[in-house]
């Protein structure tokens, strides 16, 4: 059976090594460990640099149809995964439905309808960004949450002149990395989002 060519001892040794490795938990190799450490160091160094800038704006960055958008974090109550939303009949198309966030019933607005962006299917991966002030509180549908960033105010430029209408109204500005900063205060104050309709 080809015993001359096939080294059974080698096989046994390898299997034993794998067994020991699994028993003792995950052990990254030397090269891998170094790479991870280097990456963290670089990140920390970068944060230092940003801290040096005086006037910054803390924004939560999220994706809407592959476009990057940001909302100032002090308007945001929290971000929440979209579970079990309830569609609401008799409301405009931009109102996706209602969700229950720890006992509070909130409506969810799909900004893509406002911005004429291509619609995508709704899944569990979708997230809801809950914004609010003293009078209003509702959720904004996001395809994915990318994280919190501190952006220098000086880096924010005016919106491009091609944007008009409702998009222009809600915009705060655009950064060099094509991050669109939305003005949450205006969105909260805008009457168009309020649904006031007798049926």
């Amino acid at each position, binding site marked *: 059976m080809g015993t001359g060519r096939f080294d059974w001892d080698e096989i046994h040794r390898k299997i034993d090594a794998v067994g020991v490795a699994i028993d003792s938990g995950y052990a990254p190799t030397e090269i891998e460990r170094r790479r*991870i450490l280097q990456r*963290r160091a670089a*990140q920390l160094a970068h*944060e230092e640099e940003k801290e040096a800038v005086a006037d910054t704006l*803390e924004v*939560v960055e999220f994706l809407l149809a592959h476009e990057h958008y940001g909302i100032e*974090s*002090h308007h*945001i*109550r*929290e*971000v*929440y*995964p979209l579970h079990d939303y309830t569609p609401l009949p008799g409301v405009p198309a931009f109102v996706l439905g209602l969700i229950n966030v720890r006992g509070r019933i909130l409506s969810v607005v799909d900004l893509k309808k406002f911005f004429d962006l291509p619609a995508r299917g709704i899944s569990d*991966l979708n*997230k809801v960004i809950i914004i609010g002030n003293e009078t209003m509180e509702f959720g904004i549908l996001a395809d994915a*949450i990318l*994280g*919190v960033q501190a952006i220098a105010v000086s880096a924010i430029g005016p919106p491009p002149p091609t944007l008009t209408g409702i998009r222009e109204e809600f915009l705060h500005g655009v950064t060099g990395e094509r991050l669109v900063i939305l003005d949450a205060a205006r969105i909260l104050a805008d009457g168009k989002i309020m649904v006031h309709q007798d049926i």
Partner: protein
Amino acid sequence: MKWFVDLATRTKLFLSFGLMIVFMLVVIAVAYLGLTAVHRSQESLFQDDFLPSIELLKLRSSQNRAHAQLLEMMMTRDRARQQELERDIVTRTREVDEGLKLVAASLQGRPRELQKFDELVAALADYRRVRDQQIALIYEDKSLEAQNLDATVQDKMYNRVRTLAVDLGNSAIVQAKERVAAENARAKRLSQTFIGISILVFALSVVVALYLSRIIAQPLREITIAADRIASGDLEVAIRGNDRQDEVGSLTKTFATMVRYLQEMAAISRHIAVGDLTVTVKPVSDRDVLGNAFVDMTGYLREMAAVAKQISEGDLTVPVKPESDRDILRNAFASMLTIRRRITKDLSDGINVLASSASEILASTTQIAAGMSETAASVTETTATVEQIKQTALLSSKKSRGVSENAQNSAQVAEQGKATVSETIDGINHIKELMETVAESVVMLSEQTQAIGEIITVVTDLAQQSNLLAVNAAIEASKAGEHGKGFAVVAQEIKSLADQSKQATEQVRKILGDIQKATGRSVLAAEQVSKAVEGGVKQTAESGESIRKLAESIGEAAQAAEQIAVSSQQQLAGMEQVAIAMENIKQATHQNVLGTKQAEQAAHTLNDLGQKLQEMVSRTKI
């Protein structure tokens, strides 16, 4: 009359009947003319002869009556009566005058009668004059004088008138009688003429009819009689030839030709009937059915005769092909040929066999004679040989025993081989089972990797939730302002960890995919090994079977060797008996030699007979 005979029959009939019609017309004309003449003479007879006599009778009667009235006038005294009578007399007188006029007219051209008539008229005038005197006397009442006058003068006058009238009437009657007699004579003459002409016409008609019958019906009847005889098969009829140009003539000629043709055919038939096939038949035309049939028949018979001749000369190869099943002669010939051919062939074969057998027998008997003496020598040699065989049988008995022992040893070795093969099969089957276990283990591993995949899904979910948690933490930190800065860093770290977890799970998932592929390959390999092992099992089983058969063969060989040993023993005993038998054979051989001499002579005779028969048969061609 030749031209009439040559006319067409239609024309002949037309002319004959036309002639008869002309005769009839002549007869009718004559009859008509005669009748007309008789009628005319009758009329003149009445006018000229009977009318005057009748008028004279009337005249006489009127005269008598007038005279009677005159007498009555004299008798009576009554004036009125006298006047009435006188008027009557005047009337009668007028009637008489009219009658006289008619008579005068009818008597024109007859002087004798006219003279008499003039006398009558004169006498009548005298009478009337006296009568007028008498009437005058009566009116003067002198009746007696009137009567005297009457008695003296008037009576004579009256009688004279009467006499004259009677004479005239008689002469008229006499003349009329003469005329009637003349007319009768004439009528008789006419009827005689008519009868004569009728007889003539009748005679002519009969002549024409007879002539027509002779020139048309007679030849036809002759032909009919001849045709009747031909129909009854008698062809010895003589048709009188003529040179007539009409239908009858051509019919006669054609009929004569036909008879001649039939007679020729009959003569040919007679020739053929007596077997003379040399006659030649020439068909009159293509449509000559009988002639063509005769040509075919003579051809057919000649062909058959030729075939028969060839057969009689012994040539049986002549071909005969029947036209149909009803071609009796050809069929008979064909079957005769077939049968004769078969018989001849059988005969020839038999004779050949006989001849060759005879010669063979001759040769054989000669050889037997020679062989017999050789046999005697051989028998002696055989006896010696039998002794040698006896020795050989002894040797083979011993040898076969040795073979039998060897074969038993071989059988034991074969049994061992069989056991070894069955062990080999067990070993291979064990390998097969192990391979199946390996395959099952690999499959189990594959299933467990699936469980790992599920765990990884949970880990991914956790990473996502951690990510979200990190974002919320960052938000809270930013709300806390300056105090939350440290917390923001922690939140960032948590997010980073979550991202890493996500990447790690991706890697694990990839590795799991590789493991899955490897598992598939292992299972495939195990399956191939399993199949190879099955093949091994089959081959081993076959070699086991071969070994078993070998063992059987060896066993049979051992048995055979044993039997050979026994047979050799029996052979030995048999050889003794053979030696005794050989002596008997020697004596029998001597007697055989004598018998063979006689057989040789008989074979000679048989051989000669065979040669003769062969010669006879060879003359026939098949």
